């Protein structure tokens, strides 16, 4: 794992990071960026981005439907849950708690804990959403792990990719649930097809390009470490929520100064006519910048 991160780090210095940075500078450079032609195809770009995942998402929707049926939740309740809650891990938690004879309160508590991560995620992506409160509330329902991660552009979010990807996921999840509820058992278990391994690999693929600063690598390592450390001792959902606190390493100044943070600060300084920070120039010239 450490080796992987090291290699990704080197990898991450490739062109994608540079392009993102140039975008950030371009937008900050002029107060009114020339956003003339936001192409309509971008919603489709979001759908396209999510296509590789749809088989896995739909298969898990099917398996949720099957499990919910066999736990006796009833067809209407199962499908309503997929349409309104639209969050796989929380829904599986409810089914497994209820199916094992647990109380409704325990099922609800587990599910709400699992979904608590959408609080900070929604806050981070808040400026993606438009219009009045109702429209924002409805659009925000398309925010799930995958649409959030796919639309993440180095800390900012692409509105159309998020909504397009979210819509694709919504259709896949609900169609899968309906199939599972109606067709019942006798369908392949997603685990047999290895589909449960698809999701961590997906998130790793989306994580890798973000690791081009030391601060990002610290946050990632800390986030993974916190999540793993808490898994055996806290209820499901808590580890991931606690891991989001790892982003607070962004408040730690100095030593591990993030490249893009320093670059942005320099751009802002340059706009005010000040010279770039000496620290960054020093870092740039320093050969041992990976050591901490």
């Amino acid at each position, binding site marked *: 794992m450490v080796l992987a991160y090291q290699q990704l780090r080197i990898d991450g210095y490739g062109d994608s990071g540079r392009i993102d940075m140039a975008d950030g500078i371009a937008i900050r450079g002029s107060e009114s960026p020339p956003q003339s032609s936001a192409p309509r195809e971008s919603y489709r770009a979001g759908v396209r981005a999510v296509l*590789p995942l749809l088989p896995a998402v739909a298969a898990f929707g099917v398996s949720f439907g099957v499990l919910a049926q*066999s736990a006796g939740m009833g067809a209407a309740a199962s499908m309503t849950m997929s349409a309104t809650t639209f969050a796989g891990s929380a829904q599986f938690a409810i089914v497994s708690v209820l199916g094992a004879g647990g109380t409704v309160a325990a099922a609800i508590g587990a599910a709400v804990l699992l979904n608590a991560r959408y609080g900070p995620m929604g806050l981070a992506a808040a400026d993606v*959403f438009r219009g009045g409160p109702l429209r924002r509330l409805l659009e*925000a329902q398309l925010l799930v792990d995958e649409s959030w991660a796919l639309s993440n552009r180095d800390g900012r979010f692409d509105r159309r990719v998020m909504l397009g990807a979210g819509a694709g996921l919504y259709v896949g999840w609900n169609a899968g649930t309906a199939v599972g509820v109606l067709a019942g058992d006798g369908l392949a278990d997603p685990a047999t097809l290895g*589909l449960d391994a698809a999701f*961590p*690999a*997906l998130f790793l693929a989306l994580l890798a390009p973000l690791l081009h600063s030391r601060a990002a690598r610290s946050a990632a390592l800390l986030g993974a470490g916190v999540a793993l450390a808490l898994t055996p001792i806290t209820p499901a959902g808590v580890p991931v929520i606690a891991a989001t606190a790892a982003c*607070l390493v962004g408040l730690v100044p100095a030593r591990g100064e993030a490249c893009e943070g320093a670059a942005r600060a320099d751009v802002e300084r340059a706009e005010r006519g000040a010279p770039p920070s000496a620290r960054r120039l020093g870092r740039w010239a320093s050969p041992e910048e990976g050591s901490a």
Partner: protein
Amino acid sequence: MGVAGGGVGVSAAWAAVLVVGLATIAIKAAGPVLAAGRAPPESSGRVMHLLAPALLAALVATQAFASDESLVLDERGAGLLAGGVAVLLRAPLLVVVVVAAATAAGLRAIG
């Protein structure tokens, strides 16, 4: 998982549907609605910037190595390793996902 005698009471299921549905809708909408039209303060920029790496790494870790409330090393870990190699080779997302799933499925078929 089969539950004798019809399983969960229907009202229990609907209670979970209603409460969790409303809670989830509210949680997802809280940021987008309450922070509407407000640019995040500049000081929070770096913290928000690092939310994605922290959260994604936590999702990778828990989805590959957590099973309920214990840590396990199973076929998902092997799938993640294979997917990680594909990531290093800059394979497209579809390839990464398929490699990981195929690895896990293959090991389960053998085992």
